[in-house]
């Protein structure tokens, strides 16, 4: 049996009967990576030899099942470079809280990190210093971004499951492009300690998995209050697997009118309509709802996210760690190091953010964006008084061609139009496979619910998954 093709929960079932060493699973993954990753580029620094010996506890709940980690989550003494030249060779002296938790649950941290847009700036993984990740369903297409590497690795069985991060859709959009499950938890549900910040008020770590069950299983491990993250929230973590046992009879599903607009791909729309009929068959009540401030989400997002990013990325200056161009004078050291260390998109966002925070512009841009963000959040608060969850497409289109949007940042930014609002409002959202286009590209469906109601999101997703086959179809590579 090719162990790499299994999910974590399937492996756990298997381990109950047969003893399977962590190393066995890793060997299968390594073989798979050797075979196909030169085509996909889901992992970075593959030439690197890593000393796999570690003090990890493989006796815990996960029995040494390997998990793949996005390159912006700190792993102790394992290079964490955010796929940026400026962090070249950065070895974190500490583990992110999620990594600590995974290790304590007996997970094996896979020694290769997954590809991403530099500092998570992008929707296609084309902005990686290590080159783009290709879509396992069509190598000419993007895998989505910024967690494109994690999504492509999971979709192509180069990983059992993975962690991604989501600031404006970076887990959900690549999950939908690659035909896998991606969950963005509520802001504050999972500790950000050790996540190299892009936009601190929006960033969330979450699972990218082959099915909904694995997402619930992984969330059970990584969720929870962390005293090291002042923005994490101290409320009890339920057993998310339990929520999967419940059906969705009588559940009220809202379909936001604003998400079915011009620019929405016809095939995506058709898949969504089919999905809605599945929900109805399962006894859910579907109705149209309104999120009137949706149209401002992209604008608000790009003001807030870039402002925070411009400050978060200031620390990459070549002084303490990472890439440095030696200069006699301090200012030119800063300029040369940052000028050559950051890629095009990173520079664009730093400049945008620096501009919107500048004296005299702050009120007109940043402060105003914060106010509109509150309006967007209020929209959701209102709508969740009426319905239990919302169902929308994850992205207006299926995966696009590599190179198609990279020279048009505005077009690229619009591919996050359906995912951004969840980050602005801080609410949980999942993307699950709901069909394919005629060209055999996966289509994703997004389910959103109120803050800390991941149970609802997972429950609705699981019921859909159990009554459809989309998640079982694998790309041919």
């Amino acid at each position, binding site marked *: 049996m090719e162990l790499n093709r299994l999910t974590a929960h399937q492996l756990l079932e298997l381990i109950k009967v047969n003893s399977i060493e962590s190393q066995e699973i890793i060997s299968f993954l390594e073989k798979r990576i050797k075979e196909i990753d030169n085509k996909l580029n889901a992992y970075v620094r593959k030439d690197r030899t890593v000393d796999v010996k570690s003090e990890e506890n493989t006796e815990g709940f996960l029995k040494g099942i390997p998990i793949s980690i996005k390159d912006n989550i700190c792993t102790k003494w394992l290079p964490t470079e955010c796929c940026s030249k400026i962090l070249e060779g950065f070895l974190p002296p500490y583990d992110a809280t999620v990594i600590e938790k995974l290790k304590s649950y007996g997970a094996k941290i896979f020694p290769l990190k997954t590809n991403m847009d530099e500092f998570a700036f992008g929707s296609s993984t084309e902005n990686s210093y290590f080159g783009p990740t290709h879509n396992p369903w069509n190598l000419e297409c993007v895998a989505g971004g910024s967690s494109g590497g994690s999504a492509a690795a999971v979709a192509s069985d180069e990983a059992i499951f993975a962690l991604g991060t989501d600031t404006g859709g970076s887990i959900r959009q690549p999950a939908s492009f690659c035909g896998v499950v991606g969950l963005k938890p509520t802001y504050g549900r999972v500790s950000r300690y050790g996540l190299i910040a892009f936009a601190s008020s929006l960033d969330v770590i979450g699972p990218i998995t082959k099915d909904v069950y694995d997402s619930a299983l992984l969330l059970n491990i990584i969720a929870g209050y962390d005293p090291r993250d002042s923005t994490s929230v101290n409320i009890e973590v339920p057993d998310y697997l339990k929520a999967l046992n419940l059906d969705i009879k009588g559940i009220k599903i809202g379909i936001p009118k604003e998400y079915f607009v011009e620019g929405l791909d016809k095939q995506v729309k058709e898949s969504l309509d089919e999905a809605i009929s599945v929900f109805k068959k399962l006894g859910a009540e579907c109705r149209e709802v309104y999120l009137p401030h949706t149209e401002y989400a992209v604008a608000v997002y790009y003001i807030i996210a870039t402002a925070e990013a411009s400050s978060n990325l200031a620390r990459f200056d070549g002084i*303490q760690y990472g890439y440095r161009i030696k200069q006699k004078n301090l200012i030119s050291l800063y300029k040369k190091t940052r000028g050559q260390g950051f890629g095009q998109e990173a520079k664009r966002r730093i400049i945008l953010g620096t501009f919107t925070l500048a004296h005299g512009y702050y009120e007109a841009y940043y402060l105003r964006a914060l106010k509109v963000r509150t309006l967007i959040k209020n929209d959701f608060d209102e709508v969740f008084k009426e319905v239990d969850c919302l169902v929308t497409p994850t992205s207006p289109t299926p995966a696009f061609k590599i190179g198609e949007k990279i020279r048009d940042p505005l077009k690229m930014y619009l591919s996050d139009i359906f995912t951004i609002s969840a980050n602005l409002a801080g609410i949980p959202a999942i993307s699950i496979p709901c069909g394919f286009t005629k060209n055999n590209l996966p289509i994703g469906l997004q389910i959103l619910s109120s803050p800390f109601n991941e149970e609802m999101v997972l429950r609705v997703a699981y019921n859909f998954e159990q009554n459809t086959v989309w998640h079982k179809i694998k790309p041919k590579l």
Partner: protein
Amino acid sequence: MEYEAVIGLEVHVQLKTKTKAFCSCSTEFGNPANTQTCPICLGLPGSLPVLNKTALEYALKVCLSLNCKIQEYTKFDRKNYFYPDLPKNYQISQYDLPLALGGFLEIELETGDRKKIGIHRIHLEEDAGKLIHTQDKSLVDFNRCGIPLLEIVSEPEIANPQEAYQYLISLKELLKYLDVSDCDMEKGSLRCDANISLRKKGSLSLGTKIELKNMNSFKAVRDALSYEIYRQKLVLQKRKRLSQETRLWDPKKEKTFPMRRKEEAQDYRYFPDPDLPVFVIDKEKLKMLKASLPELPFEKKMRFLKEYGITGSELDFIVSERQIADYFEACVKIYPKPKTIFNWIAGPLVSELNELKISFRELKLNPSDFIELIRMFEDKKLSNIVAKEVLKEMLRTEKKANQIVEEKGLLQISDKDILSKLAWEVISENPVAVSDYRSGKINALMFLVGQAMKKMKGKADPKLLQVILKEILDK
């Protein structure tokens, strides 16, 4: 034309919490470079700040003591600028919602009158690291980086350099009373910048503001301000314009010099730090803090004046440090002779402590043991010289007075028979002095007392000895 100065002071004090403002690294001073650091204060990627609650508590104590209006909620902002001593290239500070606004500090003027100097705002921030420049390299020490720093900004209500000096003295006294800062300018735990402008006397409009930096003592602040008044007057009298600038005080040349102009005006691009939530300041907690505040220097002064009748510079001394005042009061409780106790503390005790280089805070001498010694002296069991010797011994060995006296046999000898015998001996041994005395040289008597004391190793009661000697010689 007559001018008047308008002065405002900006004081930064390091709070003496055990750990830094946003991580658990030690704040201890003087350790090897970069030994008190962690991913958080080094600003390593992925690390996050968590507010030190004690730092907030200390800061609130200061705000309460300076009669400020404490905000219902407070937030932290990022002050963005690039500098190698600032590892994140932003400082966590407070911009538009500082901890407190609008208080005052009461100071004593030279005339003895009191004046309230307004406090504009108080906010909490983190200190930066320290750059060390060698011949060919610049090095950074991040031990200091992240130590909680309180910025206390006065209103421009200080009228002259002496008032500024008094303001600093009173502020330091207050902070030390609260036990929230060492206020040691040499170690950098207190730093002061000044803003000064001149205007026509009586005018309501303000003149051009000059910022002064690099003053390393309170005296330097006073001197720099005096110099600036002199310099600005000269410029204004020539009908020239002053330019708004930052000037550095050069203590050697005793002049201020313009700081090298920055390339352009700094824009710190303040915005709320998304890593730290808004903090609601709990009213109950605030009440408890207020109740826990110690008696502050001014109140204590008034009470000591009333209760113990201590005045003037003696009063200033006794309340100058909370530890001294507390020690004094503990002693008076046991032995209600404030004047005597004052003399013992301000005299022998302080000079011994100085010699041993111990502060009052470190003093282990129990007030009751100290009083025992004072009582032995007052009861004439010990001579003045011997009592001071015993005190020295007590501080060094931590033994009690009677134990030392017993061990060394230091009790004062007041036995008339012994002293008479001693007197006769001294008289027979010093015929010249005796005849000098008899021929009217009164001083010779003191010489004979001295000789007798020497013989008894200081233990004899000198007053009684003098009486006895005089009796014999006058016969």
